[in-house]
């Protein structure tokens, strides 16, 4: 079957520390992965994406790592700030279709 799951429903980090949010996916044929941030009452906001022919991609303060061997995706946020507090979703695309398959989400809490 197809599923995207998250290991930790809630992650609390101190301001300034690095955060790592993990995601497992089950469809080894998935070829595109995305991380979204969702603040309360708002829609998912694109953070970073990665294609299956890559294993790492960096953005501004964020890095996504893809390990296809174990079907694992992670989002690293450097120097976590209070504004990073939100729910983070990973999503994968089912090859040959148009839909995103979302995970259940991890809530990131940044402690002052």
């Amino acid at each position, binding site marked *: 079957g197809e599923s995207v799951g998250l290991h930790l429903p809630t992650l609390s980090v101190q301001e300034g520390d690095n955060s790592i949010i993990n995601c497992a996916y089950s469809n080894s044929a998935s070829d*595109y992965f*995305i991380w979204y941030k969702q603040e309360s009452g708002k*829609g998912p906001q*694109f953070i970073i*994406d990665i294609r299956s022919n890559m294993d790492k991609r960096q953005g501004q303060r964020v890095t996504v790592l893809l390990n296809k061997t174990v079907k694992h995706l992670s989002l690293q946020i450097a120097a976590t700030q209070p504004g990073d507090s939100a729910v983070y*979703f990973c999503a994968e695309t089912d090859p*040959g279709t148009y839909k995103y*398959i979302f*995970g*259940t989400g991890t809530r990131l809490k940044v402690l002052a």
Partner: protein
Amino acid sequence: EPEVTQTPSHQVTQMGQEVILRCVPISNHLYFYWYRQILGQKVEFLVSFYNNEISEKSEIFDDQFSVERPDGSNFTLKIRSTKLEDSAMYFCASGRGTSTDTQYFGPGTRLTVL
């Protein structure tokens, strides 16, 4: 920066009534989507739309649902006879390309069915 917009932000309706949720996708995008998120659950795909027709739909998207692009800017989701279990956040998204292109989401419409 262009963004997807949705109206209304909150819709309250009685069970059995019809509702229309509206979206204005990003102007140069060609692919349009509806997703929903029941409170506390994951975001679920409903339907994708391209070239004035449905490209793909999920099993959630039954005969009670329909989508339309009535003009060059709006994209609508209609629920003909709402049920209590239709209460959710409904997100519109748009993208330039197919499944490996980024989809940008609107802020959502919260639908409450009483």
